[in-house]
């Protein structure tokens, strides 16, 4: 079968190619969830645009949140190549029928959270996303290349925010440490449940969508991040964290999976708020979109009439 051979040969599947229905459905679900995460992910950082502590930081933050909106659009476009449209996907999000990354259900309580999100959350996202640049589905892989490039820029900005804070006043340093204390564990949860408990993984791997296990990526993230924390002069809030000579990796403490389950079930500090903001923006914007559509129809009709007359 051509599809299987292409997968085996690591030839990219394109929209015009035949693909199994399960492959299509898996991709739609994953790309949509990813797109939704970009859109909902604008909120925790958007929350600080009006309060950024310098004009330079305000500009950087605004540009970053805008990039996230752009990523959302690329990803919706990638999903659209699979035969769904953005409105449909947004409706599923608004009805709570599709998910977004749970990390965005934590509140941003201080400016340092802009740093922690950049450094840890974007860092974890990149770790998850880099392998997706080689995803078997062409449009998704290409979108990821572009996104990863921007994400690593964001991650450096986050690191720089924390670096400035941790080398600033004692209050700034405490703010940075507090943000890392709050975002560390949720970042580790971003890689998903342990492989032993993970569904979908085997099939996604076979299809060339998923390349590495959750635990492997999580370990890579820890290994990459711990030395960076030293550079920042910030403490990772894990008493069990230590270098393990034998494995050549950092060993780390147990993750509170109950917390992740609770948040996935909807009992996170900001689930309700994030969804409400998204729905409100969409509903309050309905008259705007309707009027733009009516205008477009009217003027398309006018253009047709004019060209008929010509």
């Amino acid at each position, binding site marked *: 079968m051509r599809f299987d051979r292409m997968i085996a040969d690591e030839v990219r599947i394109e929209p015009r190619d035949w693909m199994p229905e399960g492959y299509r459905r898996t991709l739609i679900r994953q790309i949509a969830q990813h797109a939704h995460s970009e859109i909902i992910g604008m909120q925790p950082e958007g929350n600080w645009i*009006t*309060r950024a*502590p310098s004009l330079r930081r305000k500009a950087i933050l*605004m540009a970053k949140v*805008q990039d996230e909106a752009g990523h959302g659009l690329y990803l919706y476009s990638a999903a659209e190549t699979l035969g769904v449209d953005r409105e449909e996907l947004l409706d599923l999000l608004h009805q709570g029928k599709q998910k977004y990354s749970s990390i965005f259900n934590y509140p941003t309580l201080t*400016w340092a959270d802009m740093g922690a999100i950049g450094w840890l959350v974007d860092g974890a996202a990149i770790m998850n996303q880099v392998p997706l640049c080689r995803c078997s589905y062409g449009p998704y892989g290409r979108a990821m290349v572009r996104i990863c490039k921007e994400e690593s820029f964001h991650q450096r900005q986050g690191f720089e925010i924390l670096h*400035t804070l941790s080398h600033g006043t004692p*209050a700034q340093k405490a703010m940075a440490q507090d943000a890392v204390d709050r975002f560390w564990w949720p970042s580790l949860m971003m890689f998903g449940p342990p492989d032993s408990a993970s569904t979908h993984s085997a099939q996604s791997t076979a299809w060339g969508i998923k390349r590495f296990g959750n635990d492997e990526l999580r370990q890579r993230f820890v290994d990459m991040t711990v030395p960076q924390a030293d550079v920042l002069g910030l403490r990772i809030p894990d008493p069990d964290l230590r270098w393990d000579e034998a494995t050549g990796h950092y060993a780390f403490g147990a993750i509170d999976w109950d917390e992740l389950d609770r948040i996935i079930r909807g009992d996170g500090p900001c689930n309700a708020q994030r969804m409400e903001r998204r729905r409100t*923006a969409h509903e309050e914007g309905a008259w705007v979109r*309707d009027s733009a559509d009516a205008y477009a129809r009217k003027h398309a009709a006018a253009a047709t009439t004019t060209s008929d007359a010509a």
Partner: protein
Amino acid sequence: ADPLVAYLVGLGDDALILAQRLGEWITRAPQIEEDIALGNIALDLLGQARVLLSHAGEVEGAGRDEDALAYLRDEREFRNVCLVEIPNGDFAVTMARQLVFSAYQYELWTALRNSTEPLLADLAAKAVKEVTYHRDHATQWVLRLGDGTDEGHRRMQAGLDRVWPYVAELFAADDVAAQLPGVAVDPPSLLAPWTAYVEDVVARATLTVPTPTWHSRGGRRGLHTEHLGHLLPEMQHLHRAHPGARW
């Protein structure tokens, strides 16, 4: 006070405060493209504000940088026109404000390309391009809302009505500009081209140019609406909470 400093601060505050208002839209826009578009416009304005305020601080020579000017002045020291500080309202109010302001800035920056002050002339060359996009963006939306659905039409007219009392202030004769011949632009001289452009858009949008019964005045003298006093605490709080800190 040095009139050049006052002039730069006035233009800089216009851009800064409107960037702040537009920033409030992000994650609340009617479609994702508009989150991006409003963010772009806000970023352009913030960029203009930073150049203008930085240069004002240099000319002043009292050691104030862009952040000192943005974050450490009180309400009465801000020199923006009142238009930019009014609340966002719905998307139609924001687009009405954008049409008025971007068409004003278009004329302003076009004229300032010939300023004898090199920084202003340089900034103008860049800003004209930015504001050409801002003006086009607002124009397209005023057309779509005014000449789209009935609700769009009603809301867009209400948006114009809400914003028009703040128009005259943009074109009022200004003591500061009068002291800077060649450097600054005389605001009344911008009125005719602005009116020609805006009235055409309003007419094409099947809307009516409002004839307000009152007019704002005094922003350039630090006499603002009560709204500014609620915008500044949000904008300045964190910076002020950590005196002397770097970010």
